[in-house]
């Protein structure tokens, strides 16, 4: 099997490419569905950040656990959530993975180790911390991954968790998906420190990677995960990317100079992966097109099924406030 210049096996890069295309097309579809009024509430899209999700999840084993963010569609798709039940959830349907009670910001699928996206900035970090503790105590061999945005660097729970992870040497990978925007302001207005220095201050391993280079993300995650599985110290991985869309769909982004996005096509993670694949001896446009078509078919089917799915039942929702208390 041939390999790319960066040493990632060709088959693996093809899989990464297809995952990124799946995330991208899903987000584009969700944008349309939102504009059409098919999605209640708000959605936060990760267009342009697909390499972070695809790269990290390609390394994780099924027993590894992750927590995600309000901008978490990419993470949950790459971790292996059922696509049909994902669409149903985001559209608030009965067959959604969370029965329509979670929505875009709270997608969880425990069967694939997805402990939940989280509507609270930094809210998933301590949950991943506890999950890592459970991996350690129960000797599962798994690791936990806390994915958070650059805005969460200012939350106290991150600092508490870096400290405890270090003290207890937990199998925990902190991933800062730095898209350079925290809601409506640039990261420079939110965080005075350098994450690498912060990680080192707590005695943790640190790496910063080009978050739009899926091969680099996968490679750095592999290094981190291998170290963690061998009992190495907790790891902080910063993936530097760029938010392409607004904070939420429909955000007019008046606070932002959109010149920042000029020339982005060249840095687009999917375009970069495609370029790497084209450079291979047996690469070629036909393979890339075939991947896109497979993805388009999957999404069309998922959307069709979601649109046909009924609304959730209120009495059933009431029953899950507590365990085993029916109609309380």
């Amino acid at each position, binding site marked *: 099997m041939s390999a790319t210049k960066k040493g990632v096996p060709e088959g693996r890069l093809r899989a990464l490419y297809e995952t990124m295309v799946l995330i991208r097309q899903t987000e584009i579809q969700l944008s349309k569905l939102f504009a059409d009024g098919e999605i209640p509430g708000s959605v936060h899209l990760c267009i342009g950040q697909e390499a972070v999700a695809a790269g990290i999840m390609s390394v994780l084993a099924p027993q590894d*656990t992750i*927590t995600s963010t309000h901008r978490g569609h990419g993470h949950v798709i790459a971790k292996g959530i059922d696509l049909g039940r994902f669409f149903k959830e985001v559209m608030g349907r009965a067959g*959604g*993975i*969370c*029965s*329509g*009670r*979670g929505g875009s910001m*709270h997608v*969880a*699928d*425990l*069967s694939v180790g997805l*402990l*939940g996206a*989280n*509507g*609270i900035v930094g*809210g998933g*970090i*301590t*949950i*991943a*911390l*506890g*999950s*890592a*503790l*459970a*991996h350690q*105590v*129960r000797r*599962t061999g798994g690791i*936990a991954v806390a994915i958070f945005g650059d805005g969460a660097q200012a939350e*106290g*729970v991150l600092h*508490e*968790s870096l*400290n*405890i992870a270090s*003290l*207890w040497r937990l199998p925990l990978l902190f991933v800062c998906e730095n898209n350079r925007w925290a809601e409506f302001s640039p990261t420079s207005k939110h965080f005075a420190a350098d994450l690498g220095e912060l990680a080192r201050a707590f005695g943790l391993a640190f790496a910063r990677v080009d978050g739009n280079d899926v091969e680099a993300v996968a490679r750095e995650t592999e290094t981190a995960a291998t170290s963690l599985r061998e009992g190495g110290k907790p790891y902080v991985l910063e993936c530097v990317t760029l938010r392409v869309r607004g904070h939420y769909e429909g955000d007019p982004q008046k606070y932002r100079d959109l010149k920042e996005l000029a020339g982005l096509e060249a840095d687009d993670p999917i375009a970069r992966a495609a370029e790497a694949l084209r450079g291979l001896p047996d690469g070629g446009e036909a393979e890339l097109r075939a991947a896109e078509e497979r993805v388009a078919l999957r999404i069309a089917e998922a959307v069709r099924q979601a649109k046909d799915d009924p609304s959730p039942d209120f009495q059933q*929702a009431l*029953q*899950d*406030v*507590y*365990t*085993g208390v029916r109609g*309380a």
Partner: protein
Amino acid sequence: MAGTRFGRAINQAIAECMEEDSSVIVIGEDVGAADGPFKVTRGLLNKFGPQRVFDTPISEAAIVGASVGAALGGLKPVVEIMFMDFVTLAMDALVNQAAKQRFMSGGQCSIPIVVRTPHGAGLSAGAQHSQCLEAWLAHVPGLKVVCPSNPSDAYSLFKAAVADPDPVIFVENKTLYAMTGELAVGVDAVPIGRARVARPGRDVTVVSYGASVHTSLAAAQNLQGVGIEAEIIDLRSIQPWDKEMVFASVARTHRVVIVHEAVRAFGVGAEIAASIGEDLFDELDAPVVRVGAPFMPVPFAKSLEEQYIPGVDAVTAGIRKVMV
């Protein structure tokens, strides 16, 4: 036979739960090597080791949040928040994470954590180490809240809390730690949500929980001399509370006083009074009276604190008010 102290009863219950179920862990500030600030976790580290008993840094948000994650990973964390005042630092973990995981995930999981925390004034600990904040937590769908008044109930309710699949806030009144009593070991466990009649009476129903049960009993004793027989109901569980037992008693006595140490305004008493007003209005011979702390922070000076805590005189006055 000498009785068991309240704190010791909880200690025994924790140890037995840990023996019975290897997924039960203890986590909190100084719960291990230091035996816990009120010695409730005494000896557990020695007995069960550092992979079952975790001394944490002073990071309440992370401790409770991590317990949610640990619960998702198959453990049953027993968390200690050193003073109930400090739940403020863990409110996201309790309210947005622990309470909602089951609901938001569509029932994919339960969060079997027990959060032990001492509340109450009486030690001149000041405004930041004395509060009774149970009403806040009882207001959150997904949380359960219990508050025992004696060693035996503490022992049994703790076991019920650990056995419960959902997050339970286990509130311990600090002034009860030294109280002794016989443990009802082997008798049916106290289920969450079930009150008890601490003293039967025909004239007035006094609903209370925690240390205020003893204040209410003392007031009832005083009033016996003037021919008033008060029935004291010890709620034991605040969320859910035993509506059935309270309503049955009110239907017999037709008069109600609700007593708690927490401030009266927007409190547990307000919820109970409103429920009685909604469902039992025709049974009442007098307006429901609430006895609770005044709307002020808990003061420090002994003389101030004594006036702050609703005492026997306040409960007695409350009962006399509904007897008019």
